[in-house]
Structure formats: C-alpha cells, structure tokens
C-alpha cells in the first residue's frame, strides 16, 4: 500500500481506536478498581473478579447466557437448514429477493417485534384466543408468554436470518452432485444430511452459529420484556450495576469476564473454521 493510502486510512484507524478500543480499555481498567459510595478507588485489585468467581449469581447468569446462546443456535440451525436449502436450491432468480425478504423483520426494530409477539403469545393473545375459540383449551396457556419458552422462541426468530445467511453460503459451496452421489450409494435422507450435507456446510453453520450466539448473549431486551420474572440476563445485571448501583468496577469486571469467555469461545470456533479452510487450501496447494 502506498504512503498516501496509509495517511488516508489514518482517520479511520484512529476513529476505530477511539470508538472501539478506548472504551474497552477503560472498561478493562475499571474492572480493577473499587467503588466506595460514589468515589472510585483506583488502587488496582482483583477483588471484583474474586467476587464474580465467588458469586453463585454471576456465575449462573454467565452460564445461562451461554446456554441460551447454544439453545438458540440449535433452534435456528434446525429451522435454518430447510430455509437455506430452499433459498439456495429453489430460489433461482428470486434468490436475492428471498434473502432480502428474510431480513425484513430486522428492519422493524426490537420494540415493534417484541410487542407484536406479545399480541401473538399473550394470555389474551392471538394463539390463546384461537385455541379457546376452537375449544382446544379452556384456560389460556400462560407459559406462552413471559417464560423462557417465549424469549427463546423470539430470540430464534430475531436471529434466524443470520443463521440462514451462514447456511446459505454453506449450501452455495455444496455441490449437488455430492448429495446425489450419497443417494446413489444407498444413503437414506437422514444419512445424506449427516454424512454429506452437515460436514460440507459446517463452515456456514459455524459462521452463522457464531453470529447468533454472540447476539443472543448480548441481547437483554427480549428476555427482559418477554421472559417474565426469570428473564434476567447477565447483561441486565451489568446494566443494573452501572446504572442504579454506580458499581462501575464490578460491572466492568463482569463485562470483561463475559467478553473474555466470548472471545475464547469465538477463538475456538474461528480456529475450527480456519482449520477447515486452511486444510483445504493446503490440500489444493499440493494438488
């Protein structure tokens, strides 16, 4: 790259550093401080981290965030595979239109979607009203709304497009002849998926899964507004610490712990992914 290019890129790099790295650095620094009412004591200490490790609450909140991420990744993968297959193999000239359509719910904004789901899932909502009208139930099913079921359902709905995008890319790279070869060799449909489609679309699944996972871990609006009394997330706990308790150091420490664990998780996923690609490029380099 030319020197001029470097100079032109400098503002962008600086802006990235200022908007991205500096807050992270501040967050990290704060995690070693202590708070005394409103005074921040800047003598570095690991007490905040000790508190997190010693706290059943924060440990379980972080664990729950990762579990939610895994559950939603699983749901979106199960739904996403047929959808991605349809887009990739039956989309034809409508492919880009279908992909755009898939993203439409994202344009509506969090709150609109959340309230729309309330209308659908509520005790007086569309589903319960219909089921009562049809005589299937006499009392509304309360667990449809304000429950982990509701929040995971809606999280899956929200982030499904990202999974489909990943899987769609996976399918685009999958040669149909491989599927036909598997069928030709006698594999029933489930085996075709398990032995050929799944391994061949794995990079797409990992890419989509990483996106979904990170977004689920970072989402607190949906669980808070649809998850009911048990809808607390580690993010809303951090928010409480920053907002109402002024305990920025502890909040920072939890945020840093979460980020570190997320980073570790992503690194493992990225490593798996790179090994696949690396393996491939190495092999094609030899051939």
């Amino acid at each position, binding site marked *: 790259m030319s020197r001029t290019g470097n100079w032109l890129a400098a503002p962008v790099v600086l802006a990235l550093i200022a908007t991205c790295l500096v807050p992270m650095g501040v967050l990290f620094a704060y995690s070693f401080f202590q708070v005394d*009412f409103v005074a921040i004591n800047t003598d570095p200490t690991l007490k905040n981290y000790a508190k997190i490790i010693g706290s059943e*609450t924060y440990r379980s909140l972080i664990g729950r965030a990762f579990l939610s991420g895994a559950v939603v990744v699983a749901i979106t993968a199960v739904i996403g595979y047929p959808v991605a297959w349809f887009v990739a193999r039956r989309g034809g000239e409508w492919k880009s239109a279908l992909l755009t359509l898939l993203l439409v719910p994202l344009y509506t904004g969090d709150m609109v979607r959340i309230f729309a789901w309330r209308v659908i899932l509520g005790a007086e909502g569309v589903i319960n009203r219909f089921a009562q009208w049809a005589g299937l139930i006499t009392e509304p099913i309360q667990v449809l709304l304000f429950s982990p079921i509701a929040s995971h359902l809606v999280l899956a709905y929200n982030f499904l497009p990202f999974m489909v995008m990943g899987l769609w890319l996976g399918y685009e790279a999958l040669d149909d002849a491989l599927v036909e070869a598997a069928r030709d060799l006698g594999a029933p449909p489930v085996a075709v998926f398990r032995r050929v489609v799944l391994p061949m679309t794995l990079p797409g699944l990992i890419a989509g899964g990483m996106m979904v996972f990170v977004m689920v871990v970072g989402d607190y609006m949906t669980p808070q507004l649809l998850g009911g009394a048990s809808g607390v997330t580690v993010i809303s706990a*951090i928010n409480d610490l920053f907002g*109402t308790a002024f305990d920025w150091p502890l909040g920072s420490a939890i945020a840093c712990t979460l980020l570190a664990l997320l980073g570790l998780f992503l690194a493992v996923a990225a490593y798996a992914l790179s090994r696949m690609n690396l393996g491939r490029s190495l092999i094609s380099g030899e051939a």
Partner: protein
Amino acid sequence: MTHDMHRRRFLQAVLAGTAASALPLKALAAQPDLLWMVWENLAKDEYLAPFLARSGVTISKNFIGSDDEQFAKLRAGGDSSVDLITPGLDKVDYYMASGLVQEIDLAKIPNTAKIYDAFKNSPLGKADGKTYGLPFYWGINPLVYRKDLMDAEPDWSVFFEDSKYAGKLAMRDYALEAVMIAAMYLEIPRDQIFHLDDAQLAEVKKALIAQKKLLRTYWSSIGDLTNLFATGEVVAAYSWVPPYHELNARGLSMGIANPKQGTIGWADSLAIPKGVEGEKLEAVYALIDYLLGEDYGKMLAVGGPYAQSTSSARDMLSKEERETIFIEDMSVMDSFIWRSNPERYNDWVALWNEVKAS
C-alpha cells in the same frame, strides 16, 4: 424519575464517563443564559414564559433521560457550564459526596417558606443543617390495579402471598423499590428500612424469591406496564401514576390502592452545581423561586399533573385538581415512605440480582 432508566446500553454510560467535556464555553452576554439539566416535561416553554418575560434571563435546556445519566454527565466534567440540575431528592447524596453541588442559600428564595412540612422535616438533600438539594416537585409510586378484574382493593401482601391473582401481577425491575416494598410488607419499622442489617436483608430476599413465582413479569418501562394492564395480562402492579390516568381515560376501570403498609413517595430536587457564581447564581436563585411559586405550580398541577413541593399554588386549584395530585388531604403524606438512598445500596442491588437469577 419518570423515565425509563434501563433502555440505555451500558457502554453509553462508559462513553459518557470517558468523553472529555465537549460542552461549549460559557457565552458572554449581558443577560445571563442559564443551562438547566431537566426532564423534558418540566420545562415546557409555556411553563417558563412568565419568568423569561419578567427577568430577561434566557434558559438553555439539556434534557435528561435518567437520573444516572445526569449524574454521569456532571461527574464527567459537565459542571463547568451547567447552572441548575434536577436530581432525585434521594440521589442528592451522590452529588454531595462527589462534591458536585453547592449549598443553597434559602434566604434568597422567598418561596421556600411555603415548602410542605414533610420536606422541611426530612433529612433528604441536607447535610450538617445545610441544604444542597431543594425539594422541587413530588408524587407517589402507587399500587395500581384493575378494579374490574379484582374483587377488592389489594395491598402489598398480594405480591407476597398466593392468591387467585398469582401470575397476573407485575413488579418494577428496580432494586431500591423492590426491597422497600418487601420491607414494608415484612413490617420492618420505617426508620430501619434504609438501614437494613444482614438478617433483615436475608428476610427480604426470601420474600422477594417467594414473590417471583407470583409475578407475570418484571416491568421496566411505564409504557410497557400500561400495555400489560390494558391487555389484562396484569391486574395489579407496583406502578407509577400515568397508567392510572391513561387507562381510566380510555374507559378501563383503574384504581389506586392505599396499602396499609405504606406508599412510596418520591421527590425530585433542584441543585446548583459548584462553580456557579455572581450574576448567574443570582439568576438561578430567581429561577428556583419562580419554580416554587404559584404561576409554575398551577401550570404543573394541571399539565403534569404533578404537585410542587410548596403550597404556593394550592389554593388556586379546584378540589378535583388537588385530588389528582394527592394534595387535597395532606395527611396522606404521613403514610408515605420517601425514597431515600440506602447506606448499603450495593448489597441491595446484589440481592436483587440474586433474586432475579434464582
């Protein structure tokens, strides 16, 4: 305190805390221009017009989204240009402890003579007999319920004891008030509520965990709660006043309960940042006096509707208008428990997170 505090992302708080002060330098002008950090609904142009016309002072408004945001801004160095702030009365402690506010000279504010006794006798906003946060306006955070869906007026026990309303109740997702209500239900003496010891906190935690099973959800924005009342998902909630007015106006039969265990009252205050002096300080005192006076008080009672902290406008209001803002029968104030700042608030927040995560 009428805005949602949870909507912000925590990174914004960090950014606000770290950004160097970018507020403009004070403009040099013949008549001072005051910068007021305030809730939008308290500083409508028509509320302030008489004062501006009379004094020639101009006012720039910096609207706040939450008390925490105001504190964060001021602490980040915004105090060099802000002339008046509007913290919650219970939060003034934070500003005092951070050295952000100056003593208020009551002698320069004639209308302070008309401040209600409940505030005069309260230690909130004061230290060593000096006033740092002057009560401005107040209200209650009541137990609101659907009259048409409940047989009788509930009290706080409905949130702690199993009944046919279990699963149709909502509680605000806010540590301070959740613990206060549990303490009231447990009949912990009022003077101990903000000084709970370990045993009392453990009792509170047990009660709140029991409460969790009875709730439909925790609410975090008042619009959200109004929605839950309207759709019948929730029949009773620890609430703010607006859903009561709003849904009654829409034809629902809403009630405000008067729980025997007590009601939570809140007040916002006016405070002057350190460093405001001279001509500006004089202008700020004049503005405060106006805000505690009858013109502003009447407009706030009708438009808010909120009650100011003085009796300035009381006699000018109709009985109905007085009832709306709870100043018809002043004895009701006796059952209030004013929101204060608990000394072990970090433990309260930790407890609240434990309850929610349980």
